[in-house]
């Protein structure tokens, strides 16, 4: 007879299963349920079940549960809360790559929540040495944060760093987009302001808004004409009292709006520029 027969095996398997505590088994069941609810996009219920697992067995697979709670809140577009859970999860995660991934998820949440400063701090808090792929990704995020925070110079440096292994023509394309005179700084709101101060409508024309330019010019000309006829028909005092305040309103309105229009136009240009940078990175991926 064999010293360790088939029956011994069965007994061994049954017996050793006792080493696995029932609490963990039951928690595992809750997590499985929560995971399946998550896959079915029933996020409310998934959140409840993950919390139940955490409540009854706080130490058990905490990293998995908190990162899933992060994902759930992310999918419900509550990025602030998602970032909180990713933060807990990344501190618990022992696997380096997974931890890195959670760092990036947290940064993404902070950016979608428009907390670029916090995202920057998070990126600086990442380990000094990391595999090339993660470094590139971090540099890409750094560039994007800087861009949103309004410093094109630092954004360009970070993006160049992220594309350092890319083909030469792509690096040149990035250089063309970001260096020298580019649409990041144009049109200048101050220039538009001064132009419209000198002659109503000029600033709007400079910013590329023809309709508002003509509108401002015609309106102000009309008011000047009205002031003129009032001065002829009544007295100059009448014109000053009853018409001049309107002229002041719409003339001043003209140069204030011209600067607004230029600022808005510049925002659009910046958005376009960012899209072009993004498509460079998209090509780089392929």
């Amino acid at each position, binding site marked *: 007879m064999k010293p360790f027969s088939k029956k011994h095996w069965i007994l061994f398997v049954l017996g050793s299963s006792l080493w696995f505590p029932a609490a963990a088994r039951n928690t595992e069941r809750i997590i499985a349920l929560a995971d399946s609810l998550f896959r079915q996009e029933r996020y409310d219920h998934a959140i409840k079940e993950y919390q139940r697992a955490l409540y009854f067995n706080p130490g058990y697979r905490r990293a998995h549960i908190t990162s899933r709670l992060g994902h759930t809140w992310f999918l419900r577009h509550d990025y602030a809360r998602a970032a909180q859970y990713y933060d807990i999860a990344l501190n618990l995660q022992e696997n380096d790559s997974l931890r890195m991934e959670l760092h990036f998820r947290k940064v*993404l949440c902070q950016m979608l929540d428009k907390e670029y400063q916090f995202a920057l701090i998070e990126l600086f808090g990442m380990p000094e040495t990391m595999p090339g792929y993660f470094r590139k990704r971090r540099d890409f995020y750094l560039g994007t944060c800087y861009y949103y925070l309004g410093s094109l110079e630092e954004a360009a440096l970070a993006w160049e760093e992220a594309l350092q292994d890319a083909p030469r023509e792509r690096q040149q394309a990035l250089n063309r987009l970001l260096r020298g005179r580019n649409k990041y700084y144009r049109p200048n709101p101050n220039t538009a302001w001064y132009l419209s101060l000198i002659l109503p409508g000029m600033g709007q024309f400079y910013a590329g808004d023809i309709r508002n330019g003509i*509108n401002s010019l015609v309106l102000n000309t009309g008011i000047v004409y009205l002031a003129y006829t009032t001065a002829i028909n009544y007295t100059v005092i009448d014109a000053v009292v009853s018409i001049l305040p309107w002229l*002041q309103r719409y003339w001043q*309105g003209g140069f204030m709006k011209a600067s607004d229009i230029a600022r808005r136009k510049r925002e659009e240009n910046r958005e376009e520029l*960012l*899209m072009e940078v993004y498509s460079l990175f998209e090509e780089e991926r392929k």
Partner: protein
Amino acid sequence: MNGNMKTYTIILFLCCSAAVWGQTAEELELLKQHARHEERAERFAFLKESSNELERFTSVLFLAYKAFISSQDAISCVFYPSCSEYAVQAIQQQGLFIGLLNTFDRLTRCNALSPENYPIHPGTNLFYDPVEPEEHVH
């Protein structure tokens, strides 16, 4: 936007869970959507509720004023809804006579001297003064 975003994030999540470190395509897509300006909701939807000639006439006047005059003005209204929107809504809801009385009253109140009298409208940070604040008057 939400539908797309959901799909992308689910794909992203599946990538994560399989520990296949796909690159940042989905993140790029999310960031692209984030960068695009949000479409503004139609603010003057109430104009479509005009039921007679008078209301249609005031609506056209209002739109012309908004487009050619108010858009060039240095001094902007301190209220939400603005005085011109208020005028159209008041005439729509209360008829020409009371609507006009309310509009003239609103014009004299349109100054920033009495912030204590109005709540702040969260979307615009202006004083909130809708047409019929008296519905709760007992």
